[in-house]
Protein backbone atom coordinates (compact mmCIF):
# COMPACT_ATOMS: atom_id res chain seq x y z
CA UNK A 1 0.00 0.00 0.00
CA UNK A 2 1.21 3.48 -0.81
CA UNK A 3 -0.59 5.84 1.48
CA UNK A 4 -2.64 6.07 4.65
CA UNK A 5 -5.62 6.85 2.38
CA UNK A 6 -5.33 3.34 0.94
CA UNK A 7 -5.76 1.83 4.39
CA UNK A 8 -9.04 3.69 4.92
CA UNK A 9 -10.20 2.66 1.44
CA UNK A 10 -9.49 -0.96 2.33
CA UNK A 11 -11.61 -0.83 5.47
CA UNK A 12 -14.40 0.93 3.59
CA UNK A 13 -14.61 -2.06 1.27
CA UNK A 14 -15.57 -4.35 4.15
CA UNK A 15 -19.25 -3.66 4.38
CA UNK A 16 -21.16 -3.77 7.64
CA UNK A 17 -24.76 -3.29 8.58
CA UNK A 18 -25.84 -1.59 11.76
CA UNK A 19 -29.44 -2.39 12.65
CA UNK A 20 -31.09 -0.11 15.15
CA UNK A 21 -34.09 -1.65 16.90
CA UNK A 22 -36.16 0.95 18.69
CA UNK A 23 -39.73 1.84 19.52
CA UNK A 24 -39.23 5.04 17.59
CA UNK A 25 -37.14 4.44 14.46
CA UNK A 26 -36.17 8.10 14.50
CA UNK A 27 -33.93 7.11 17.40
CA UNK A 28 -31.67 5.83 14.63
CA UNK A 29 -31.21 9.28 13.15
CA UNK A 30 -28.06 10.02 15.16
CA UNK A 31 -26.61 6.60 14.29
CA UNK A 32 -27.26 7.21 10.61
CA UNK A 33 -25.64 10.63 10.77
CA UNK A 34 -22.51 9.22 12.34
CA UNK A 35 -22.04 6.05 10.36
CA UNK A 36 -23.83 5.85 7.05
CA UNK A 37 -21.08 5.55 4.47
CA UNK A 38 -20.30 3.12 1.74
CA UNK A 39 -18.88 0.91 4.49
CA UNK A 40 -21.92 0.95 6.74
CA UNK A 41 -25.58 0.52 5.97
CA UNK A 42 -27.87 1.66 8.78
CA UNK A 43 -31.21 -0.14 8.99
CA UNK A 44 -34.06 0.84 11.28
CA UNK A 45 -36.42 -1.72 12.82
CA UNK A 46 -39.41 -1.18 15.06
CA UNK A 47 -39.87 -2.75 18.45
CA UNK A 48 -43.07 -2.89 20.53
CA UNK A 49 -43.34 0.18 22.77
CA UNK A 50 -42.46 -1.62 25.96
CA UNK A 51 -38.96 -2.68 24.87
CA UNK A 52 -35.71 -0.79 25.38
CA UNK A 53 -33.84 -0.34 22.11
CA UNK A 54 -30.67 -2.07 20.94
CA UNK A 55 -28.10 -1.93 18.14
CA UNK A 56 -27.01 -4.98 16.21
CA UNK A 57 -23.94 -5.14 13.94
CA UNK A 58 -23.75 -7.55 10.99
CA UNK A 59 -20.56 -8.48 9.15
CA UNK A 60 -20.09 -8.36 5.40
CA UNK A 61 -21.57 -11.88 5.17
CA UNK A 62 -24.72 -10.54 6.86
CA UNK A 63 -24.33 -12.66 9.97
CA UNK A 64 -24.99 -11.45 13.51
CA UNK A 65 -21.72 -10.09 14.86
CA UNK A 66 -22.73 -8.48 18.17
CA UNK A 67 -25.45 -6.46 19.88
CA UNK A 68 -25.64 -3.90 22.66
CA UNK A 69 -28.31 -1.70 24.21
CA UNK A 70 -29.02 1.63 22.54
CA UNK A 71 -28.14 3.38 25.80
CA UNK A 72 -24.72 1.72 25.92
CA UNK A 73 -24.20 2.52 22.26
CA UNK A 74 -24.93 6.19 22.90
CA UNK A 75 -22.40 6.16 25.74
CA UNK A 76 -19.90 4.70 23.26
CA UNK A 77 -20.49 7.68 20.99
CA UNK A 78 -20.17 10.19 23.83
CA UNK A 79 -17.32 8.82 25.83
CA UNK A 80 -15.46 10.22 28.79
CA UNK A 81 -11.86 11.01 28.10
CA UNK A 82 -9.42 9.85 30.77
CA UNK A 83 -5.68 9.25 31.08
CA UNK A 84 -4.35 5.86 29.93
CA UNK A 85 -2.77 4.95 33.26
CA UNK A 86 -5.89 5.65 35.23
CA UNK A 87 -7.19 2.14 34.68
CA UNK A 88 -10.62 1.56 36.07
CA UNK A 89 -12.65 -1.48 37.09
CA UNK A 90 -14.63 -1.16 33.91
CA UNK A 91 -11.62 -1.93 31.68
CA UNK A 92 -13.10 -5.07 30.22
CA UNK A 93 -16.41 -3.42 29.58
CA UNK A 94 -14.84 -0.50 27.81
CA UNK A 95 -12.72 -2.81 25.66
CA UNK A 96 -15.85 -4.80 24.71
CA UNK A 97 -17.63 -1.63 23.81
CA UNK A 98 -14.68 -0.32 21.80
CA UNK A 99 -14.43 -3.64 20.02
CA UNK A 100 -18.09 -3.31 19.04
CA UNK A 101 -17.32 -0.84 16.29
CA UNK A 102 -13.91 -1.91 15.11
CA UNK A 103 -13.45 -1.74 11.34
CA UNK A 104 -16.57 0.44 11.10
CA UNK A 105 -15.88 3.76 9.43
CA UNK A 106 -17.13 6.81 11.33
CA UNK A 107 -17.82 9.88 9.25
CA UNK A 108 -17.52 12.90 11.50
CA UNK A 109 -15.99 12.23 14.86
CA UNK A 110 -15.12 15.32 16.81
CA UNK A 111 -11.92 15.84 18.79
CA UNK A 112 -13.39 14.53 22.02
CA UNK A 113 -14.48 11.29 20.38
CA UNK A 114 -11.08 10.96 18.72
CA UNK A 115 -9.35 11.50 22.07
CA UNK A 116 -11.45 8.80 23.69
CA UNK A 117 -10.56 6.36 20.91
CA UNK A 118 -6.92 7.45 21.26
CA UNK A 119 -7.01 6.55 24.94
CA UNK A 120 -8.20 3.01 24.16
CA UNK A 121 -5.10 2.44 22.03
CA UNK A 122 -2.81 4.08 24.60
CA UNK A 123 -4.27 2.01 27.42
CA UNK A 124 -3.52 -1.17 25.59
CA UNK A 125 0.07 -0.07 24.97
CA UNK A 126 0.42 0.94 28.61
CA UNK A 127 -0.82 -2.50 29.77
CA UNK A 128 1.49 -4.39 27.39
CA UNK A 129 4.40 -2.22 28.58
CA UNK A 130 6.54 -2.97 25.53
CA UNK A 131 6.66 -2.60 21.76
CA UNK A 132 6.27 0.59 19.74
CA UNK A 133 3.50 3.17 19.59
CA UNK A 134 3.46 5.28 16.43
CA UNK A 135 1.53 8.49 16.84
CA UNK A 136 0.65 10.95 14.09
CA UNK A 137 -0.23 14.52 14.88
CA UNK A 138 -1.27 16.83 12.17
CA UNK A 139 0.51 19.82 13.56
CA UNK A 140 2.74 20.93 16.41
CA UNK A 141 -0.11 22.45 18.43
CA UNK A 142 -1.88 19.11 18.58
CA UNK A 143 1.41 17.48 19.55
CA UNK A 144 2.12 20.00 22.29
CA UNK A 145 -1.25 19.25 23.89
CA UNK A 146 -0.41 15.56 24.24
CA UNK A 147 3.28 15.80 24.90
CA UNK A 148 3.05 15.09 28.63
CA UNK A 149 1.24 11.81 27.94
CA UNK A 150 3.94 10.57 25.60
CA UNK A 151 6.73 11.87 27.76
CA UNK A 152 5.38 9.73 30.55
CA UNK A 153 5.22 6.71 28.27
CA UNK A 154 8.83 7.25 27.33
CA UNK A 155 10.01 7.53 30.94
CA UNK A 156 7.70 5.20 32.84
CA UNK A 157 6.94 2.36 30.47
CA UNK A 158 8.68 -0.11 28.20
CA UNK A 159 6.81 1.33 25.21
CA UNK A 160 8.84 3.14 22.57
CA UNK A 161 6.96 6.16 21.28
CA UNK A 162 7.53 7.54 17.79
CA UNK A 163 5.68 10.74 17.03
CA UNK A 164 5.09 12.02 13.50
CA UNK A 165 4.26 15.65 12.95
CA UNK A 166 3.99 17.87 9.92
CA UNK A 167 6.81 20.26 9.49
CA UNK A 168 6.11 23.77 10.64
CA UNK A 169 9.15 26.00 10.38
CA UNK A 170 7.52 28.65 12.56
CA UNK A 171 6.43 26.48 15.51
CA UNK A 172 8.71 25.61 18.37
CA UNK A 173 9.30 21.90 18.52
CA UNK A 174 11.61 22.16 21.51
CA UNK A 175 8.46 22.29 23.65
CA UNK A 176 8.11 18.59 23.00
CA UNK A 177 9.33 16.32 25.77
CA UNK A 178 12.97 15.43 25.14
CA UNK A 179 12.39 11.70 25.71
CA UNK A 180 10.03 11.42 22.76
CA UNK A 181 11.33 10.73 19.24
CA UNK A 182 9.78 13.11 16.74
CA UNK A 183 9.78 12.51 13.01
CA UNK A 184 9.01 15.58 10.96
CA UNK A 185 7.25 15.23 7.63
CA UNK A 186 7.59 17.98 5.07
CA UNK A 187 4.16 18.63 3.58
CA UNK A 188 3.01 15.04 3.00
CA UNK A 189 0.08 13.05 4.32
CA UNK A 190 0.91 13.52 8.03
CA UNK A 191 -0.76 16.93 8.07
CA UNK A 192 -4.15 15.38 7.24
CA UNK A 193 -4.25 12.34 9.49
CA UNK A 194 -4.66 11.59 13.17
CA UNK A 195 -3.31 8.12 13.90
CA UNK A 196 -2.11 5.84 16.66
CA UNK A 197 -0.70 2.45 15.82
CA UNK A 198 0.50 -0.02 18.42
CA UNK A 199 2.55 -2.99 17.20
CA UNK A 200 1.52 -5.14 20.16
CA UNK A 201 5.18 -5.79 20.99
CA UNK A 202 5.02 -8.46 18.28
CA UNK A 203 1.87 -10.14 19.67
CA UNK A 204 -0.96 -10.22 17.10
CA UNK A 205 -3.54 -10.23 19.87
CA UNK A 206 -2.36 -6.86 21.15
CA UNK A 207 -2.05 -5.02 17.85
CA UNK A 208 -4.42 -2.11 17.38
CA UNK A 209 -4.70 1.12 15.43
CA UNK A 210 -6.76 4.27 15.05
CA UNK A 211 -6.55 6.13 11.74
CA UNK A 212 -8.63 9.12 10.68
CA UNK A 213 -8.48 11.90 8.13
CA UNK A 214 -9.57 15.41 9.03
CA UNK A 215 -12.03 15.97 6.20
CA UNK A 216 -13.49 19.18 7.54
CA UNK A 217 -12.16 21.34 10.38
CA UNK A 218 -12.39 19.42 13.64
CA UNK A 219 -14.23 16.50 12.01
CA UNK A 220 -12.61 13.15 11.39
CA UNK A 221 -13.35 10.32 8.98
CA UNK A 222 -11.76 7.00 9.88
CA UNK A 223 -11.82 3.81 11.92
CA UNK A 224 -10.06 1.79 14.58
CA UNK A 225 -9.10 -1.85 14.35
CA UNK A 226 -7.65 -4.82 16.21
CA UNK A 227 -6.98 -6.63 12.95
CA UNK A 228 -3.27 -7.60 12.97
CA UNK A 229 -2.88 -7.53 9.16
CA UNK A 230 -4.20 -4.00 8.91
CA UNK A 231 -1.97 -2.89 11.77
CA UNK A 232 1.06 -4.59 10.15
CA UNK A 233 0.31 -2.78 6.88
CA UNK A 234 0.31 0.62 8.53
CA UNK A 235 3.44 -0.13 10.56
CA UNK A 236 5.30 -1.25 7.41
CA UNK A 237 4.23 1.88 5.61
CA UNK A 238 5.39 4.15 8.42
CA UNK A 239 8.68 2.31 8.77
CA UNK A 240 9.55 2.24 5.08
CA UNK A 241 8.18 5.62 4.05
CA UNK A 242 9.60 7.56 6.94
CA UNK A 243 12.69 5.48 7.56
CA UNK A 244 11.98 4.64 11.19
CA UNK A 245 11.98 1.47 13.24
Amino acid at each position, binding site marked *: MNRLADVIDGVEQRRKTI*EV*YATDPEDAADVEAQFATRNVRVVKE*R*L*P*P*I*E*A*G*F*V*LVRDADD*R*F*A*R*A*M*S*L*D*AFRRLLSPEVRLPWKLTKTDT*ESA*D*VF*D*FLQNTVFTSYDRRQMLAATREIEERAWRVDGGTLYVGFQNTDALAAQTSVYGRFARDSGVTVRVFVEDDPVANIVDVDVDVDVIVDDGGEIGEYWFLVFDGDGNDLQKCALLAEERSPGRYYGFWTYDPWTVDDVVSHLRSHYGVE
Partner: protein
Amino acid sequence: MDGNAEDIDAEVLRSLAESDRAEESFRVLAEPRVRDVLRYLFEHSKVYLDRLADVVAGLEATRTDAVVEGIDRETVRVLLYHSVLPRLDAAGFVDFDPERKVVTEADVPPAVYAALGVTGE
Protein backbone atom coordinates in the same frame (compact mmCIF):
# COMPACT_ATOMS: atom_id res chain seq x y z
CA MET B 1 -36.61 -2.75 33.35
CA ASP B 2 -35.74 -5.86 35.32
CA GLY B 3 -36.14 -8.87 33.08
CA ASN B 4 -37.37 -11.07 35.87
CA ALA B 5 -39.96 -9.03 37.65
CA GLU B 6 -42.26 -6.73 35.76
CA ASP B 7 -45.11 -4.74 37.13
CA ILE B 8 -48.35 -6.22 35.92
CA ASP B 9 -51.53 -4.41 36.74
CA ALA B 10 -53.76 -6.23 39.25
CA GLU B 11 -56.77 -5.95 36.95
CA VAL B 12 -54.79 -7.49 34.12
CA LEU B 13 -53.66 -10.32 36.37
CA ARG B 14 -57.22 -10.97 37.39
CA SER B 15 -58.38 -11.21 33.77
CA LEU B 16 -55.49 -13.47 33.02
CA ALA B 17 -56.41 -15.78 35.90
CA GLU B 18 -59.97 -15.90 34.64
CA SER B 19 -59.02 -16.42 31.00
CA ASP B 20 -58.87 -19.60 28.99
CA ARG B 21 -55.60 -21.43 29.41
CA ALA B 22 -54.76 -19.41 32.47
CA GLU B 23 -52.30 -21.95 33.76
CA GLU B 24 -50.31 -22.12 30.55
CA SER B 25 -50.43 -18.35 30.31
CA PHE B 26 -48.87 -17.87 33.72
CA ARG B 27 -46.21 -20.46 32.94
CA VAL B 28 -45.14 -18.84 29.71
CA LEU B 29 -45.18 -15.34 31.14
CA ALA B 30 -42.63 -16.34 33.77
CA GLU B 31 -39.73 -16.40 31.32
CA PRO B 32 -38.13 -13.28 29.83
CA ARG B 33 -37.30 -14.98 26.52
CA VAL B 34 -40.86 -16.16 26.10
CA ARG B 35 -42.12 -12.66 26.81
CA ASP B 36 -39.70 -11.29 24.20
CA VAL B 37 -40.95 -13.76 21.58
CA LEU B 38 -44.63 -13.04 22.24
CA ARG B 39 -44.16 -9.28 22.23
CA TYR B 40 -42.33 -9.44 18.94
CA LEU B 41 -45.05 -11.62 17.42
CA PHE B 42 -47.67 -9.11 18.49
CA GLU B 43 -46.36 -6.77 15.81
CA HIS B 44 -44.87 -9.28 13.36
CA SER B 45 -47.23 -12.18 12.99
CA LYS B 46 -44.71 -14.31 11.14
CA VAL B 47 -40.95 -14.43 11.76
CA TYR B 48 -38.07 -16.69 10.85
CA LEU B 49 -36.05 -18.30 13.61
CA ASP B 50 -32.86 -16.39 12.69
CA ARG B 51 -34.54 -13.01 13.00
CA LEU B 52 -36.20 -14.03 16.26
CA ALA B 53 -32.84 -15.15 17.66
CA ASP B 54 -31.35 -11.77 16.70
CA VAL B 55 -34.16 -9.90 18.44
CA VAL B 56 -34.13 -11.99 21.61
CA ALA B 57 -30.32 -11.72 21.81
CA GLY B 58 -30.57 -7.95 21.34
CA LEU B 59 -33.22 -7.66 24.05
CA GLU B 60 -30.94 -9.60 26.40
CA ALA B 61 -28.26 -7.01 25.69
CA THR B 62 -30.66 -4.35 26.94
CA ARG B 63 -31.29 -6.29 30.16
CA THR B 64 -27.65 -7.04 30.96
CA ASP B 65 -26.21 -3.79 29.56
CA ALA B 66 -23.34 -5.89 28.18
CA VAL B 67 -22.29 -6.75 24.63
CA VAL B 68 -23.92 -9.90 23.32
CA GLU B 69 -21.53 -11.82 21.06
CA GLY B 70 -22.20 -14.30 18.27
CA ILE B 71 -21.81 -17.26 20.59
CA ASP B 72 -24.46 -15.90 22.98
CA ARG B 73 -26.81 -15.37 20.07
CA GLU B 74 -26.21 -18.98 18.99
CA THR B 75 -27.16 -20.13 22.48
CA VAL B 76 -30.37 -18.14 22.22
CA ARG B 77 -31.13 -19.67 18.85
CA VAL B 78 -30.62 -23.19 20.16
CA LEU B 79 -32.84 -22.52 23.18
CA LEU B 80 -35.57 -21.05 21.01
CA TYR B 81 -35.43 -23.96 18.60
CA HIS B 82 -35.29 -26.78 21.13
CA SER B 83 -37.18 -25.41 24.09
CA VAL B 84 -39.04 -22.11 23.92
CA LEU B 85 -40.79 -22.44 20.56
CA PRO B 86 -41.82 -26.08 20.92
CA ARG B 87 -43.36 -25.25 24.32
CA LEU B 88 -45.23 -22.25 22.95
CA ASP B 89 -46.44 -24.41 20.07
CA ALA B 90 -47.62 -27.13 22.47
CA ALA B 91 -49.47 -24.51 24.52
CA GLY B 92 -51.22 -23.37 21.36
CA PHE B 93 -49.87 -19.82 21.36
CA VAL B 94 -47.77 -20.15 18.19
CA ASP B 95 -47.30 -22.43 15.23
CA PHE B 96 -43.66 -23.38 15.00
CA ASP B 97 -42.44 -25.18 11.89
CA PRO B 98 -39.03 -26.61 12.82
CA GLU B 99 -38.26 -27.70 9.25
CA ARG B 100 -38.84 -24.30 7.66
CA LYS B 101 -37.73 -22.60 10.89
CA VAL B 102 -40.59 -20.17 10.89
CA VAL B 103 -42.89 -19.09 13.71
CA THR B 104 -46.40 -17.82 13.18
CA GLU B 105 -48.62 -16.28 15.80
CA ALA B 106 -51.44 -18.70 16.37
CA ASP B 107 -53.70 -17.97 19.28
CA VAL B 108 -52.49 -15.80 22.10
CA PRO B 109 -55.19 -14.85 24.61
CA PRO B 110 -55.78 -11.06 24.74
CA ALA B 111 -55.21 -11.23 28.50
CA VAL B 112 -51.66 -12.41 27.84
CA TYR B 113 -50.93 -9.50 25.52
CA ALA B 114 -52.40 -7.16 28.08
CA ALA B 115 -50.15 -8.66 30.74
CA LEU B 116 -47.20 -8.17 28.40
CA GLY B 117 -48.06 -4.50 28.13
CA VAL B 118 -48.31 -4.38 24.35
CA THR B 119 -51.99 -3.49 24.17
CA GLY B 120 -53.80 -0.63 25.84
CA GLU B 121 -56.22 -2.87 27.75
